[in-house]
């Protein structure tokens, strides 16, 4: 307990929580002070995430028992390669989003920094938790912070988009609770590792009920991940949200993807008996459909923010297609793709804001406007990011897509995946080329003058463009990391063992007493079923 290293697992949750709380207390203070604290909080979070990543990189599973309660009774946080990497990507994205926000767009509403920190807390909590109900709670934390951030800046368009977004997500939360309630009612536990054991040993008469709950849970996660036909909320919400907020939203669809991967590899994975690989066939078909629908949206978009929002839909579809293939190579390819697509789409959202600001009344509409004085700089950045997102060599999206196609080579779906991924990439590239040439080349002499962009504002965008290049240069170590993460996901037995056999860290007598008291209630076969479960 005295070793601080044990607590690194909870640090990515505690750091934003404490920073956010401090910012609530300082709500009347000067903006520079709040910006400094918020930025310091994010840098501290970045350090904590890196530390966590280094600790799990060798394949260790870190299990953190909250309040020292042992696994099926207490809530645990679990850090494996996947969750540590997701936390790391979130922190990096948060750094760039905050760099962008403190250039001025954080002043359009009062509590921007507080909401930002709580959103980070919800995201990191969702990535790290090992308990299904706790996942719900962290989802709610990140959602309520995102409601505030979506409305940041105000205005009629945001109110309308915000209302849709909030209502859709509230319904999603209700479905989540129905699913969790059913799983608890049948299986008598909410710990994910324990759920996996119970599902594997499920009596045949309960299979239907558990399958219904599992598919209901899939609907909720698919809603968060914007999978067709539950993607309709995303383009409106993301294109209406302010750039300071939406840069961080780019990771939010990944939370849905992560939850699908976690729940359906651990609880309903290959060893789940009659419920094994429950959603994989659905994922593949829906993922491919999502790519197609997203591409149609990209082609039809009349402004840049909407176009980038549809790019988020496409990337979500690509990731879930890879997850739907289910092999280690495919999961690894999907993870490789998802890390870079979160960063690149966030950078595109930030660039959109910069372009819109220089064009005055034309904003980000895709029609001929005033000649941009810094068209080379803005256009150059747009070119790099567009190539990265469409998947043109030598940028990061290219390797991601190649890996996904390579992983599908010896599966029956190869023809579909190849045809859809390649043709939609071409169409996306065309749409982006059209958008770029309209914005940066076509000028209307009657449109008035454009203003110079603020170069400081472009620093985070340029930084992501450089990262996209570095992501290719270091593709080999990153890919071997995602491959190891996928291998870890596909052997859930290690996860279950680590969580359920973790030594309780309690040292005081009372804790041990209450533990033995609960264990006294276990059934003879050693399964700690609550008295009602199985007895109906």
């Amino acid at each position, binding site marked *: 307990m005295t070793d601080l290293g044990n607590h690194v697992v909870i640090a990515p949750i505690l750091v934003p929580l404490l920073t956010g709380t401090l910012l609530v207390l300082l709500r009347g203070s000067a903006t520079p002070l709040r910006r400094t604290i918020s930025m310091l909080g994010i840098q501290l979070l970045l350090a904590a995430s890196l530390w966590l990543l280094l600790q799990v990189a060798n394949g260790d599973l870190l299990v953190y028992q909250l309040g020292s309660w042992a696994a099926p009774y207490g809530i645990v946080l679990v850090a494996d390669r996947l969750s540590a990497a997701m936390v790391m990507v979130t922190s990096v994205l948060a750094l760039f989003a905050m760099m962008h926000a403190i250039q001025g767009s954080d002043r359009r509403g009062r509590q921007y920094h507080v909401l930002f920190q709580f959103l980070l807390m919800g995201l990191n909590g969702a990535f790290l938790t090992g308990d299904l*109900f706790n996942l719900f*709670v962290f989802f*709610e934390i990140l959602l*309520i912070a995102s*409601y505030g951030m979506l*409305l940041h800046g*105000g*205005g*009629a368009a945001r*109110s*309308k988009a*915000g*209302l*849709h977004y*909030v*209502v859709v997500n*509230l*319904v999603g*939360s*209700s479905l989540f*609770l*129905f699913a*969790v*309630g*059913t799983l*608890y*009612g049948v299986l008598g536990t*909410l710990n994910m590792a324990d759920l996996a054991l119970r599902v594997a040993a499920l009596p045949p008469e309960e299979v239907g009920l558990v399958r219904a709950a599992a598919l209901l849970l899939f609907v909720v996660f698919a809603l968060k991940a914007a999978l067709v036909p539950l993607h309709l909320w995303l383009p409106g919400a993301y294109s209406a949200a302010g750039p300071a907020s939406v840069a961080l939203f780019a990771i939010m669809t990944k939370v849905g993807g992560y939850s699908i991967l976690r729940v359906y590899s651990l609880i309903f994975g290959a060893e789940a008996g009659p419920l094994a690989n429950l959603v994989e066939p659905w994922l593949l078909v829906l993922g491919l459909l999502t790519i197609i629908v997203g591409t149609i949206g990209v082609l039809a978009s009349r402004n840049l923010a909407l176009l980038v929002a549809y790019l988020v839909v496409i990337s979500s579809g690509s990731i879930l297609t890879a997850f739907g293939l289910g092999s280690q190579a495919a999961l690894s390819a999907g993870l490789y793709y998802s890390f870079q697509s979160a960063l690149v789409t966030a950078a595109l959202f930030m660039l959109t804001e910069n372009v819109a600001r220089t064009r005055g009344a034309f904003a980000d509409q895709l029609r001929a406007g005033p000649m941009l004085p810094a068209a080379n700089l803005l256009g150059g950045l747009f070119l790099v990011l567009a190539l990265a997102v469409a998947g043109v060599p030598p940028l990061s999206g290219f390797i991601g897509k190649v890996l996904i196609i390579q992983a599908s080579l010896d599966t029956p779906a190869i023809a579909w995946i190849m045809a859809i991924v390649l043709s939609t990439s071409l169409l996306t590239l065309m749409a982006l080329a059209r958008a770029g040439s309209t914005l940066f080349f076509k000028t209307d002499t009657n449109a008035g003058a454009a203003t110079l962009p603020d170069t400081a504002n472009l620093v985070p965008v340029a930084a992501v463009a450089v990262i996209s290049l570095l992501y290719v240069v270091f593709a080999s170590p990153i890919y071997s990391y995602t491959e190891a993460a996928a291998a870890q996901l596909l052997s859930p037995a290690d996860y279950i063992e680590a969580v359920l056999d973790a030594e309780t860290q309690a040292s005081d007598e009372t804790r041990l007493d209450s533990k033995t*008291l*609960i264990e006294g*209630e276990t059934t003879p076969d050693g399964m700690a079923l*609550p*008295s*009602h479960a199985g007895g*109906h």
Partner: protein
Amino acid sequence: MEALIALSVGLLTACGIYLLLRGRTFPVVLGITLLSYAVNLFLFVMGRLSIGVPAILEPNRTDYADPLPQALVLTAIVIGFGMTAFVVVLALRARADLGNDHVDGREP
């Protein structure tokens, strides 16, 4: 008893979904409220229905009411209450910003 509770959950959910699909913000907010009532009731009975048994373990009792769903439903009520308050304020804000209370922001 179980049938009555199941019917109540079903009726609340059905009314909630019907109201959610209406075009004005006020029925939608009511729909969300009814749906969250249904969820809370559902979560609560997931610990099974029992009368007159304590929710704590005592050394010489074998039957007890499962306390976990009660804790879950408490969390769900708090979160649901906060969300309802938020969506009410948001609906009022949208009414002020858009000039009408239709969910699409314009009269059909």
